[in-house]
């Protein structure tokens, strides 16, 4: 399934999906290219790259560091840039790999404390394995197109994502926003399928509830 809106101002991937850029960030070397202009990169692509990183790593300082690392890596490997894709796509590819490296590092360093607390939180919704009826999921009557175009909805979405523990949020974003397969995510983050399944389940449950409380049910009260 491809993203229908990739050709946007800030994310011009041309002729390929996100997956391919994750795997091969740098274009195959061949033809000589003009000299790199790092000042222009920062001015023209800096904000877009920063926003892309920020929504994934959620900490401005970390996002800034990742953008810097991506620019430095791009500068070092500029001779390999064949110009087959746009300069921005190429830079995005490098940034994505930096983000994946960050996720990997996060996976090695994050304790499971956050995940356990999330699990306990979720267990309060059930009694004896059944939903507590009065606290069960509500019927959303959404008009998807309308909602998806309201910027306030996405502010709420980002806030809800921000409440998830880092590791859980990262797998959710890789799966749902970047549409990677579970195999790809497991390989990328060196985690087992069952571990990934648990993390995705917890992220979906927590995000669903957060949006229900803060968006879908908010107007009704």
């Amino acid at each position: 399934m491809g993203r229908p809106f990739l050709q946007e101002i800030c994310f011009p991937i041309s002729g390929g999906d996100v997956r391919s850029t994750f795997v091969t960030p740098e274009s195959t070397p061949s033809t000589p290219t003009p000299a790199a202009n790092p000042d222009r990169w920062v001015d023209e692509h800096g904000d877009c790259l920063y926003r892309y990183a920020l929504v994934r790593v959620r900490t401005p300082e970390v996002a800034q560091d990742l953008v810097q690392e991506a620019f430095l890596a791009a500068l070092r490997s500029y001779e390999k840039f064949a110009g087959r894709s746009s300069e921005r796509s190429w830079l995005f590819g490098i940034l994505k790999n930096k983000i994946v490296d960050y996720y990997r590092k996060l996976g090695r360093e994050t304790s499971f404390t956050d995940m356990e607390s999330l699990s306990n939180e979720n267990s309060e919704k059930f009694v004896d394995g059944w939903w507590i009826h009065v606290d069960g999921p509500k019927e959303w009557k959404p008009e998807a197109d309308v909602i998806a175009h309201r910027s306030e909805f996405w502010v709420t979405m980002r806030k809800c994502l921000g409440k998830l523990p880092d590791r859980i949020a990262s797998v959710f974003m890789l799966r749902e926003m970047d549409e990677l397969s579970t195999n790809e995510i497991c390989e990328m983050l060196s985690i087992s399928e069952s571990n990934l399944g648990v993390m995705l389940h917890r992220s979906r449950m927590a995000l669903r509830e957060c949006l229900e409380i803060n968006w879908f049910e908010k107007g009704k009260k």
Partner: protein
Amino acid sequence: MPAETPNPRAPDDDSLFQGKTWLSRKMIAFINSWTPRCREVTHLISEGMDHPLPLLTRIKMRAHFLTCCYCERYEKNLRFLRRIIRFSPWEKHEDETAQLPPEVKERLKQALHGDHGPS
């Protein structure tokens, strides 16, 4: 839902079988003995979004939904979230007001000029 567990149905419960009649209670008891409980069903719903589930599991989930509108809503909610996340413009995910502060841009430029690039 086991009759002995005090778990009153919410006013908005629109499950097919709500236990209001003898037949409905019997159907609920039968379905509940044959299908997984809600906690496991939520796991299966999530799993089903990543892998195809076995046919029998899918049948059991559908049967469970006849007595539990909450699990059915849970699945609808998750599918809706996936749809709007995947089919909305990319920028919607991002904070369009977020920009690199000028001092950070300056720092980046200095770092890039200090690095051993080809230019």
